[in-house]
């Protein structure tokens, strides 16, 4: 691996905040939560109404133990109050506006004050420093710039560190690889499926990612992925790859990030308060139990959110201080989204579970598609997988055996009967952006 783990043990961007003890973190959270409730009570008509309805006054919330008294905020609330209904500061204080693309209706608006932008850049700088980025690095931002929070978020964070930032955005894969090689890029961030595509494209171009490129650290996020894909990326580029988590509604990337321990993602707990709840009942779940991630923004000024329901499924890990020296709460990888969850014959299936099985099988391609159809009254699950030159040895029986092996592994993992189909290379849709993984052909219910 590119960088010695030992050297990263003392890599802190804001050492004081990052090394807070568990006790101090709780004190900071208590204080900031009280401040948050007071701020929204004064500044936000939306929250004032919501809190009054529940009989909560500006000083009713004493500590994070009172969190469950507070109402949830949902994506619908953001849509219904489009565009600026959730501002908690005068409009004149807003210095940046992003949106997140909605498939239907209004997009979600995210507004930032100057201080919000400063904290955001510092959070990203913490993430990058934690994973080995220094002022010496040439950092390629292979994420969309513009309304999407990813590109500009990483851009300002990396620039704050003093790295040489290459704002190459998305698309033009061969040009991306060329820049990576010619400029001696040492670190980059992109969505995971595109990182794989970049590596494969490099190989096609006769560039060996391990020998001809100088990449030493990579971070990926913004779409569901699995540790199997991470292993594949680490093999491809010969360096560590870190999971990045964030969502535009609470400000974009930089909410949580993996450290060198690669054992869960640290949520910057001085700025974000997390809970995991049962998505059906709304009840808080203890560490180790999987449920919907709920985030309260403790520091945001322009558009703070209280108990925002992310629809992401994850769990909180135990609260030991991590080997990297941080006590900031760790969460698991995101298992899926409450809305990506496919229900097949009564069983909940996440695309990431399927991906995880496929990635563990040597020679199986990165490209697969999940097709759900209705045959009579029964849901049928079909997984289509592209055959690559690596798998194909010219013998029919090998392919038949491979198909059997994949279906039995998948059936074991999901507890569902399914069919596996082998597809020709390049025949499955492969967007340059997010891959089209799930095709649900069942009639709407």
């Amino acid at each position: 691996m590119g960088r010695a783990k030992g050297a990263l043990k003392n890599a802190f961007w804001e050492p004081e905040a990052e090394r807070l003890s568990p006790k101090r973190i709780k004190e900071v959270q208590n204080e900031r939560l009280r401040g948050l409730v007071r701020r929204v009570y004064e500044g936000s008509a939306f929250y004032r109404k919501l809190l009054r309805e529940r009989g909560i006054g500006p000083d009713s919330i004493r500590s994070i133990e009172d969190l469950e008294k507070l109402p949830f905020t949902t994506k619908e609330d953001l849509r219904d109050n489009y565009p600026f209904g959730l501002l908690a500061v005068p409009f004149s204080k807003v210095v940046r506006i992003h949106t997140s693309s909605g498939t239907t209706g209004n997009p979600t608006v995210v507004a930032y004050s100057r201080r919000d932008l400063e904290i955001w850049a510092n959070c990203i700088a913490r993430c990058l420093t934690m994973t080995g980025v220094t002022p010496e690095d040439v950092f390629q931002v292979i994420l969309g710039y513009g309304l999407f929070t990813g590109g500009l978020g990483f851009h300002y964070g990396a620039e704050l560190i003093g790295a040489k930032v290459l704002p190459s955005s998305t698309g033009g894969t061969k040009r991306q690889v060329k820049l990576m090689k010619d400029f001696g890029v040492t670190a980059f961030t992109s969505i995971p499926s595109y990182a794989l595509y970049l590596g494969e494209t490099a190989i096609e171009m006769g560039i060996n990612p391990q020998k001809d490129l100088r990449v030493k650290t990579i971070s990926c996020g913004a779409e569901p992925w699995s540790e199997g894909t991470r292993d594949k990326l680490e093999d491809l580029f010969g360096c560590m790859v870190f999971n990045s988590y964030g969502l535009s509604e609470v400000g974009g990337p930089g909410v949580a990030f993996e450290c060198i321990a690669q054992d869960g993602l640290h949520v910057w707990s001085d700025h974000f308060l997390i809970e995991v709840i049962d998505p059906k009942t709304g009840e808080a779940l203890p560490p180790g139990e999987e449920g919907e991630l709920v985030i309260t923004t403790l520091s945001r000024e322009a558009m703070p959110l209280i108990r925002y329901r992310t629809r992401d499924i994850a769990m909180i890990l135990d609260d030991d201080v991590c080997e990297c020296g941080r006590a900031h709460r760790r969460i698991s990888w995101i298992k899926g989204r409450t809305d990506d969850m496919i229900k097949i014959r009564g069983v909940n299936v996440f695309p990431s579970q399927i991906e995880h099985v496929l990635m563990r099988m040597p020679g199986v391609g990165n490209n697969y598609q999940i097709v759900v159809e209705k045959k009579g009254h029964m849901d049928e699950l079909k997984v289509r997988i592209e055959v690559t030159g690596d798998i194909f040895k010219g013998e029919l029986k090998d392919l038949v055996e491979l198909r059997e092996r994949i279906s039995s592994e998948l059936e074991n993992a999901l507890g569902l009967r399914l069919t596996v189909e082998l597809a020709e290379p390049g025949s499955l849709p492969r967007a340059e952006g997010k891959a089209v993984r799930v095709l649900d052909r069942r009639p709407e219910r």
Partner: protein
Amino acid sequence: MKVRKQISVFVENKPGRLSKVLEVLRDGGIGVEAFMIADAGEFGIIHLILSDPARGKERLVESSFAISESDVLVLGSVDQDLLLELSTELGRSDINIQYAYGSLGEKDLIVMKLSDLERGEEIFKGILSSRRAPPASSE
């Protein structure tokens, strides 16, 4: 008789796949001397003997087919008796014909994929030389 490279192409079993493969080869000016389609339900393999296997492979890979190459025994000037003798001899030597395709007659060409190519080749050479060796009494 020759040991030659066979190019095998993975295809989904749906209409138009053979024509796509043939089109790619034609556009590359590569001749098809023999072929066979083997199928296993919703997918199959097209095995090909090409005039220029190296370039054929290149063109097919460029068109993003999954391909694989292997060595096969290709026999010309084969009659039914010779084929019988060869297969009997291979059977006796415990060499499996994994699959074979071709035709006898005017433009005869037989392609054989064997479990042991080298020994199969020797056996065939042996049969041919023993056929030639005896004095041409019958003629």
